[in-house]
């Protein structure tokens, strides 16, 4: 589905993405993990057209999509969420969702004056759909609340909710889990699996929660210092020395010290 | 071929005036940029703050002159400057208490401050005109020239004269020192950094134990000092007239913005850019070319790129082009 070829993104002298090449298979739930600052978000941003690459290519279904603006990519079925929530703060949560579907009749000025009937019908359907999503995310009580005034975790949920408003081909999720309650995250995980199975969405997920990754994803791609360090199933990755050293670690050191002190 | 005369002509009509004017703009722009950098809004009252400060200085200067106090070859106004700064400081801090603090508490959008500052501008405008009137006021004294055109001609025997006014010299020096100090203050001192922190993230500044009221007060004090100094130097060089100070606002803003809002170095660069584009692009190069060309030859036209009618437009045009390539100014300024 997505092929990234030798992608580079430099900020001044700093190589945030440094020759990354990877493939996201159609129909997979691919995980992208790696230490902080490995370049995952930057890679997402380049793929999604937010940042222009320094060099390299991004191909989607055989078509070169390098450097296309985000709204064009959206229309090609590429959706993404943001690691740091980008809600529309002055709009209500419901409006945050309702604005998503593309090509709404009422988005053309002419129709807002002379196509009231059609708009009204569409709006009704959209509203129902938005409410459904809100309910799924357990935030239906916030439907009319300004999105700028909800909790950090709820913003992340909204972030995810927007991708559920349309039929996408591929969805990039940037740490949807960070700050989300684990019980809810499990439900979200289920939903992702369902969307993947039933509707054939492809997912690419950045996460630091290995349980979540383990439950959902295959394959797992590990990035470090701007390039791909390893790729494989979750178990392979968990056993990979390099990955353990750079990313996973070996657990709490103070565990022993504490025990020592307490004994 | 007479390179010396050509150079002196250019120096006399372009480089010195533009540098001095640039420094004047830069001093004003430093104040604007500081308010933007710390308090995050474009202060439209800055021109009138300058006028107010200058007015105080003028009144004091008159007093001093009346009492027979002078400052040797330097203008007496420099002696009166501290008083002007102090009173202007009181005024702007008072204004902040009465007007801006309320919006800060409300966490109002920057545009609200901008409009509020328009209101403040109207009021200060009225106060200044009320106290000192709308006419030209002169208060310059001391040695007018570091070197005057005639002296230069007599000294060098060149055909062209070269004039360099005391006020121009002082302005250039003061502008550069002010920029250096401000840069050092904001980037190196604890207080300066806390001011930047406040402007970046007010809530977090609170959590770091930074006292917002103190930050705001210091900002206004510096602004008062800058505005008064800028206004006084401008007044010494040209003359004091309330309306001109209001008009000065536009090029000052242009300088601050094109330099990159919030950045002292940007303010200086912006000031010079505006000044040089105003003076340079519309300069008629005829004389210079005449000197450079063969003896006795002179070009037909004025050798002027654009007529001076368009000097303001030209400087804005250049500003636009700069912004197209550097959307947040030469020095990558802030944007709210």
């Amino acid at each position, binding site marked *: 589905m997505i092929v990234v070829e030798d992608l580079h993104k430099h900020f001044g002298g700093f190589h945030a993405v440094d020759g990354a090449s990877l493939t996201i298979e159609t129909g997979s739930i691919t995980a992208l993990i790696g230490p902080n600052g490995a370049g995952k978000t930057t890679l997402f941003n380049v793929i999604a057209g937010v940042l222009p690459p320094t060099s390299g290519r991004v191909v989607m279904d055989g078509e070169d999509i390098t450097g296309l603006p985000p709204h064009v990519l959206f229309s090609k079925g590429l959706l993404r969420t943001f690691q740091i929530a980008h809600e529309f703060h002055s709009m209500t949560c419901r409006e945050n969702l309702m604005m998503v579907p593309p090509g709404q009749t009422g988005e053309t000025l002419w129709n807002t004056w002379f196509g009231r009937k059609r708009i009204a019908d569409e709006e009704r359907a959209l509203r129902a759909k938005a409410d459904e999503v809100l309910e799924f995310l357990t935030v239906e009580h916030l439907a009319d609340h300004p999105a700028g005034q909800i909790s950090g975790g709820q913003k992340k949920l909204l972030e995810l909710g927007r991708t559920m408003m349309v039929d996408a081909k591929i969805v990039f999720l940037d740490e949807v889990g960070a700050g989300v309650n684990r019980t809810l995250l499990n439900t979200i995980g289920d939903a992702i699996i369902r969307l993947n199975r039933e509707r054939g969405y492809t997912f690419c997920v950045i996460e630091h929660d290995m349980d979540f990754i383990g439950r959902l994803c295959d394959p797992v791609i590990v990035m470090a210092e701007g390039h791909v360090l390893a790729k494989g199933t979750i178990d392979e990755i968990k056993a990979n020395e390099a990955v353990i050293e750079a990313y996973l670690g070996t657990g709490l050191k103070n565990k022993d010290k504490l025990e020592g002190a307490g004994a | 071929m007479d390179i010396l005369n050509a150079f002196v002509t250019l120096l*006399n*009509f*372009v480089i010195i*005036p*533009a540098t001095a*004017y640039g420094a*004047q*703009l830069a001093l004003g722009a430093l104040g604007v940029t500081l308010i933007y950098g710390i308090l995050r809004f474009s202060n439209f009252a800055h021109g009138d703050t300058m006028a107010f400060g200058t007015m105080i200085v003028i009144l004091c200067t008159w007093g001093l002159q009346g009492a027979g106090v002078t400052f040797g070859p330097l203008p007496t106004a420099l002696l009166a400057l501290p008083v002007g700064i102090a009173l202007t400081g009181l005024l702007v801090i008072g204004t902040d208490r009465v007007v801006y603090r309320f919006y800060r508490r409300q966490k109002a959008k920057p545009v609200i401050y901008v409009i509020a500052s328009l209101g403040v501008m109207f009021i200060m405008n009225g106060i200044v*005109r009320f106290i000192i*009137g*709308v*006419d*030209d006021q*002169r208060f310059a004294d001391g040695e007018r*020239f570091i070197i*005057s*055109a*005639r002296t230069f*001609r007599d000294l060098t025997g060149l055909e062209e*004269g070269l*004039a360099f*006014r005391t006020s121009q010299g002082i302005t250039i020096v003061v502008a550069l020192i002010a920029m250096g100090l401000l840069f050092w203050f904001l980037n190196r001192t604890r207080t300066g950094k806390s001011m930047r922190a406040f402007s970046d993230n007010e809530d977090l500044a609170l959590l770091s134990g930074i006292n917002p009221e103190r930050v705001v007060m210091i900002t206004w004090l510096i602004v008062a000092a800058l505005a008064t100094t800028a206004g006084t130097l*401008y007044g010494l060089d*040209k*003359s004091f*007239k309330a*309306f*001109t100070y*209001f*008009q*000065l606002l536009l*090029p000052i803003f242009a300088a601050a913005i094109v330099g990159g809002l919030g950045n002292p170095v940007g303010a200086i660069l912006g000031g010079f850019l505006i*000044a040089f584009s*105003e*003076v340079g692009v*519309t*300069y*008629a*190069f*005829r*004389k*210079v070319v005449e000197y450079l060309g063969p003896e006795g030859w002179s070009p037909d036209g*004025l*050798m*002027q790129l654009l*007529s*001076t*009618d368009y*000097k*303001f437009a030209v400087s804005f045009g250049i500003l636009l082009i700069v912004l197209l390539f550097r959307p947040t100014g030469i020095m990558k300024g802030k944007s709210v």
Partner: protein
Amino acid sequence: QDTITLGVLLGFTGPAESLAPGMADGAELAMAEVTESGALLGGATVVSVRGDSACDATLSVAAAERLITSAGVNGIIGALCSGATIPALTNVAMPNGMVMVSPSATSPALSTLEDNGLFFRTAPSDARQGVVMAQNILDRGFDTVAVTYTNNDYGRGLADSFAAAFAELGGTVTLVASHEDGRADYSAEVGALAAAGGDVLVVAGYIDQGGPGIIRAALDTGAFDTFVLPDGMVGNAITERFGTEINGSFGQFPGTDSEGAAMYFDLATAAGFDGTAAFSAEAYDAAALIMLAMQAAGSTVPAEYAAHIMDVANAPGEPILPGELGRALELLAAGQDIDYIGATAVELIGGGESAGAYREIEVVDGVIQTVNFR
């Protein structure tokens, strides 16, 4: 009628704000004089209502509207800028049949404007001054000049008519460059003018606007040291500011060899303001004309006294100088004719505008001296 109100519609704020106070003082001085004399229409008191035209079309219309329909004035002295005068005249004064006498709107456009006989001015059209100035310069033996004008209808009109006249008379104009008033810096203009060169620099600007800035920069850089000063630039402020630095500079402004100006200056000084302020004397005359015409018509209704303005302003009749308004009123009451000379030697021609006799001045030892009349 006990009180007569006259509107003083001037640009008290905005680009010409420093001109307005002196003019208003002048107009009000005339009113005070008349009131004191107790001779107008059997002892009427004349009071002034000020309106701010701000040199802006809409504001001036609004202010005129207020003066006429709310304050109920019987005549208007104003407006200051031509750009504010025309809309106030066409949109408000004419529909309401109100008389306007402008002391300072000198745009040639006003000469031909359809005004139903309601508009007069005590300052001559710029078209005339251009010719006079051209002659003046050539007579002094200068034949190449550079010109800078303030970029409005006054400056532009004057510069145009001057340049045309000067070229016709055989002189050379090296450059005609505009300058905007109230700007921070005039180095660019002076640079261009200096490059163009010329024996003298004609500064068709305002004494308290960009004009002095231009002169300052030209003097400092050594670009010019002799300046030609038309009406907007003549005043004590200029010599106060530059003193002997501009010795030899010369110019002209409306006036005749009557003693009027000097008398007016004394009157103004007694009243506590500067009588040489630009257009202040013209304002005095404008107010005087309106009141004298009222007396002549025996009415304060504009439609009735408008026709008498020309009569009182021009010969034949007893000449009237500043400070003699009381006498004039009595003469008129007695049915005699007067010829109002006033502070600026008023002579109205054509559609009610000043004929334009000019007083030629020169700066000698840092003082403005009258050297000739044209």
